[in-house]
């Protein structure tokens, strides 16, 4: 594909031929992914396939060994640190563990990106922070410290912080784990509303098939470093492949391995006995 095609393509993120390895373990092997503008794209796959790593690649936190990663038409490997930071100002990133600043209050956590990147006066910052916290239902928790929050609350604060600067692209790493059914519903709707009303592009990494299917426009299923399936939730639902059916329906038996690669179990037990 020629470079100018990418510039004008309507994909916010375009990954071609991605190879990435940690140590001598290949995490991605010639992976191709494109994220269309204005849509909610889900990336699903079993635990440990490299979904978090894929988000890191897309945001330039780690660099690919091989292959190209284009974000907003820019080759992320070629950007200087300042250009990368300029790009990231348009990105929101929800970390799997929240990554809140433990020594600042909830309020200060959400205010942080505003204080760093805008010159807004204090009363406007206050407005924005309370509005974002209200959206995730935690305005009342503004003065708590992160240690006083539950895991699900911390995740919602992190979400409020991720959208504080009204980003154009937002990455959610497992936004649904640790949420009760009510906040789950609220967050699912919030993701949808944010995406549609602000014209965002959203990328959700998750293995909660049901919630993700209810909110996403397209999904990628990845496993063993490759894309196994791609399509709308309905298409995946009716996919014929045994692998996809097993994953989407959460069946125990099938081609998807539940175990991390390991030597033969019986052999290992016996081997230890001898040692």
């Amino acid at each position: 594909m020629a470079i100018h095609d990418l510039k004008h393509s309507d994909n916010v993120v375009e990954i071609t031929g991605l190879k990435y390895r940690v140590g001598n373990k290949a995490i991605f092997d010639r992976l191709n992914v494109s994220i269309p503008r204005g849509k909610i794209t889900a990336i699903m796959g079993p635990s440990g396939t490299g979904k978090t790593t894929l988000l890191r690649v897309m945001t330039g936190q780690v660099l690919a060994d091989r292959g190209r990663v284009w974000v907003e038409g820019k080759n992320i490997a070629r950007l200087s640190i300042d250009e990368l930071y300029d790009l990231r100002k348009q990105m929101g990133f929800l970390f799997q563990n929240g990554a809140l600043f433990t020594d600042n209050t909830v309020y200060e956590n959400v205010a942080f990106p505003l204080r760093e990147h805008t010159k807004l006066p204090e009363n406007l910052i206050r407005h924005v922070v309370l509005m974002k916290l209200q959206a995730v239902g935690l305005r009342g928790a503004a003065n708590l410290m992160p240690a006083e929050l539950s895991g699900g609350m911390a995740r919602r604060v992190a979400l409020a912080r991720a959208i504080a600067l009204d980003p154009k692209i937002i990455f959610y790493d497992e936004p649904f784990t640790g949420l009760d059914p009510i906040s789950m519903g609220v967050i699912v709707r919030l993701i949808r509303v944010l995406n549609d009303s602000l014209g965002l592009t959203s990328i959700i990494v998750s293995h909660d098939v049901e919630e993700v299917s209810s909110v996403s426009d397209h999904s990628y299923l990845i496993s063993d470093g490759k894309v196994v399936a791609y399509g709308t939730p309905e298409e995946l639902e009716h996919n014929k492949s045994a692998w996809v059916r097993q994953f989407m329906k959460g069946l125990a038996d099938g081609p998807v391995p539940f175990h991390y690669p390991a030597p033969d179990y019986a052999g290992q037990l016996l081997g230890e006995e001898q040692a």
Partner: protein
Amino acid sequence: MRFLLREIYYIALDFLQGVGSICLFLFRLLRYTPTALLRWRIVWQQIYSVGAMSLVLIMVSGLFVGMVMALESYHVLVKFAATAALGTGVALSILRELGPVVTALLFAGRAGTALTSEIGLMRATEQLAGMEMMAVDPVRRIVVPRFIAGAVSVPLLTMIFCAIAILGGYYVGVDLMGVDQGAFWSQMRVNVDLVDDILKSVVIKSIVFGGAISLIAVYEGYYSLPTAEGVSRATTRTVVNSSLAVLALDYLLTALLFHGA
């Protein structure tokens, strides 16, 4: 024998690599220092938390060091009927050696470790990565202000240490041992040299020590492994390395400043 030589070679190589990368880190910090100073609020906050938490420790230690110095010196001087020189003796040993060195060692143990573990834990809990994703450089936002704060605090703390140590010496010498008050101060004033004993020693040494400790502390924190053990090892390395650095630099500076190398 061969084995031993190879061991030494690797240790030396390790050491040089460490020094090299810490120097590169220092250049990076210095490059961002002017812009960090513009955001003086953040720096000021750090000076407050780094300096203030060491203040009581430094004052109490200074008092005791001064008192011990006076007690020891008095028992030597009294044999030669030279107790009038007590003030000079106490002041010179405090200003030239004990003040800067003891303050630096205490600071490394009290504030250096806190800096390392704070930054290391921020790395381990992905707070630094989170900051990078919000397009904020953690070196500029977190590391540089702490480095400046440490480097500024040590000279201030050293001056406080010296002042209190001399007062402690005065208390033991004059109030307890009965040395003549006038002799204590006047001899001190005649024999303590502004350039040699205050500028060269207290000021220069404490600035160098403060810079070295803060650099080591933030470096170890920033590059610590993101695990519980990684952070605890980094903290230990801060104490060991910065104490050794202070003692080695003390020798170097004394040789250079006073004995004209």
